[in-house]
């Protein structure tokens, strides 16, 4: 005798609420578990996203072109010429949002009181802004006006360390390709702030043309930074540029910053592990609840069997019951998760541990990021593993012998 689905569902639904306390407690547990899965994942995604975005702004760009030996030995001798025709074709194509060629060499900066080792960046301000430099980060003065600007923009922390300020002069020393010391005086025209203190201390922006003249390198640069559309998929852009820039090293940020790309990869694995662990903690309660529900109804199940219900129908009924419980818990958990994440969209202030976050490469605001694939994954984990876990109690229930079950008290 096959029972119609509607009747079966009604039976399961009523059974579920026969002991409403037990069901409510289990529902709360599932909801809490699902909430934790989604909420925690959103926080971690937010942190990693933030780290990656910061990393890309710092790099900058999704793909960079260097001379082969530059990354191992970032000296001005390992430079590359301005992009040729083949490269320009890719750089001006639609897959590129912005690009800029820059000089980046180790240098020393001196004020009248102090010296510091720095990274001297010879940039084209227009390109730098397009690559993601935020003009709001300039806290005093202004950003460079063009590649021929004779001023420098230094970080807030560096200005403090050098005991200097806007409008003062500093001397920057580096070496030219012949290893002669090249130095030049600059006026500080702007001071910038950065999320990561380390940037404030070590990055100095100067006009590209000025730096090229100072280092006597003609039109050569250290790197070409290229911004694509999606940081998640820089491979195509890197491959196209690689074809166009034969003889040079073309790498995406995934390779340029192994810490970040590993972080992103590890995070995917971690999200899944976290969800499964939470589910396992839930599963004991789930099995227990179902076991108890069945145990109380042994006689009833015996009667149904005696009346001709197949064991498969018993399994089916209990699975439907479990499915209803899981679905309700999921609904509650999802609503709870979304309604706690949305109010936090504007960020959670974790500046108490700002320096610790900086060490990990993250900023002191945490923005939860709700990704639908993660929500889907959480729901899938609960439903699939939940049904699998329910199979055992359901199967056991179907194995009672009608006569013995009826005789049970």
């Amino acid at each position: 005798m096959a029972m119609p689905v509607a009747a079966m569902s009604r039976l399961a639904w009523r059974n579920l609420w026969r002991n409403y306390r037990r069901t409510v407690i289990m529902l709360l547990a599932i909801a809490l578990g699902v909430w934790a899965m989604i909420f925690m994942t959103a926080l971690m995604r937010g942190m990693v996203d933030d780290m990656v975005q910061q990393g890309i702004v710092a790099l900058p760009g999704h793909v960079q072109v260097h001379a082969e030996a530059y990354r191992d030995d970032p000296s001005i001798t390992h430079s590359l010429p301005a992009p040729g025709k083949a490269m320009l074709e890719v750089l001006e194509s639609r897959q590129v949002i912005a690009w800029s060629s820059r000089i980046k060499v180790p240098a020393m900066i001196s004020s009248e009181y102090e010296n510091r080792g720095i990274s001297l960046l010879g940039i084209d301000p227009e390109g730098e802004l397009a690559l993601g430099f935020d003009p709001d980060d300039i806290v005093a003065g202004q950003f460079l006006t063009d590649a021929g600007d004779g001023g420098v923009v230094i970080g807030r922390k560096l200005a403090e360390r050098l005991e200097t300020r806007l409008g003062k002069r500093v001397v920057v020393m580096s070496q030219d390709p012949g290893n002669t010391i090249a130095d030049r005086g600059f006026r500080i025209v702007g001071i910038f702030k950065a999320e990561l203190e380390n940037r404030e201390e070590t990055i100095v922006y100067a006009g590209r043309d000025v730096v090229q003249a100072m280092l006597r390198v003609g039109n050569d640069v250290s790197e070409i930074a290229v911004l694509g559309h999606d940081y998640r998929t820089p491979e195509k852009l890197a491959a196209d540029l690689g074809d166009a820039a034969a003889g040079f090293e073309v790498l995406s940020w995934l390779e340029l910053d192994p810490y970040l790309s590993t972080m992103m990869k590890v995070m995917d694995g971690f999200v899944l592990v976290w969800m499964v662990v939470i589910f396992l903690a839930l599963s004991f309660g789930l099995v227990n609840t179902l076991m108890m529900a069945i145990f109380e109804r042994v006689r009833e199940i015996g009667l149904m069997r005696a009346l001709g219900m197949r064991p498969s129908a018993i399994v089916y009924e209990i699975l439907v019951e479990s499915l209803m419980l899981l679905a309700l818990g999921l609904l509650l958990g999802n609503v709870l998760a979304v309604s706690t994440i949305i109010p936090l969209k504007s960020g959670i202030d974790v500046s108490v541990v700002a320096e610790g976050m900086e060490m990990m490469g993250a900023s002191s605001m945490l923005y939860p990021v709700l990704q639908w694939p993660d929500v889907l994954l959480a729901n899938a984990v609960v439903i699939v593993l939940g049904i699998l876990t329910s199979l055992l109690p359901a199967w056991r229930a179907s194995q009672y012998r009608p006569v013995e079950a009826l005789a049970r008290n």
Partner: protein
Amino acid sequence: MTTKRQRDSAFGLSLRLAWRNIWRQKRRTWLTALAMVFSNVLLVFMISLQLGSYDMMINTTLRMFSGQVQVQRVGYQDEQKMRQDIAGVGELASTIRSRFPAASVAARANAFVLLSSEDRSFGTQVVGVEPDFEAGVSTIPGLVADGRFLQDPGAAEIVIGGVMARNLKVAVGDELTFLGSGKDGSFAAGVLTVVGIFNSGSSDLDRSLAEVPLGYFQDAFAMGGSGHIIAISTAELGGIADLMESLRAIIAGGDELVALDWEALTPGLKQAIQADFTSAWFMYAVLIILVAFSVLNTQLMSVLERTREFGVIMALGIKPRRLALLVLLETFLMALIGLVIGVLLGAVVAGYFGFAGFAYPGMDELAAKFNMPSVIYPSVGPVSLMLGPTVVFIFCLFAAIYPAVKLYGLKPVEAMRAV
């Protein structure tokens, strides 16, 4: 009036009753206990892993270079200006050394210079160190892979990191020139012979650390007898608090000196640990609450299904308080089973990895960022073993309060009629 003996035997009876009660539903009890065991094992493992990795982070960072405690001029930690110096740094270091024979004490001075070889120039920091004492506070002298560490306090010699040597394209025996300014703003320059190259494994230090003898440093940078830092390390970590206390007394008379411990020296490290610990506890809390729900459900069911039984007992004159205690005692026993098995299993798992080391794919890259080896050895100790399981235990007892309290509302006559 009940005598003590009667009370004892009453408790013994309750205990026996509780023990028997929890085994009336074997499967349910085991499932509930297993939920506790699961979370306990996980907590023991995770907490010992965390503590193990924190130990390693702190140790590698402090032992490699900074030392456990530093004496500096007030403000130097933040501003690192050359003139924020400690006058007579060598004498002060000697004083501290004679007061704490068990500790290693070494004076240092810092300056930023442009360091040039024949082919390359880099802006970097050079540190003036006392060759005789530096090895006590830093592992760098022992990590010199090529050549030797500094010996003569006045020699024009320099020891640099492997990455810096590669970048400067120099080997042991080559010469480096430096260019910077002295404490008084004067021009400071000189020629140094590379006598040693170290490989610390920390890319930061290998790239940016250069050490010269303190005596030479003081001459070259017009420092007189002064320096910037006195680094102090002791073998036993427990003695740090005492050490700090006495240090403060020693330097109290001096010109605005402070003693900084590792938390002040490396605030990033401390906060990274805090952030990690907090986020981890958020996860643990969820796990623990889920287990508590499981216990709540079990105990509530076990109370509800015994309504009739409890009705009879109450009709016989037993107070609800005794029954509530019985339910709590049952939970206590169940939680104890979960605790004991969980801690034992957890200790085995954590102990195994403590011996074999624990690593996951991708850890190389992540560990490098924090100066850590790419294998973590969980630290198994009383704290890592008991902290998590104890919290689980307490929460499980809390979970039993609601079912226990429900008993107070029980009316014997109605209860006996209940299904």
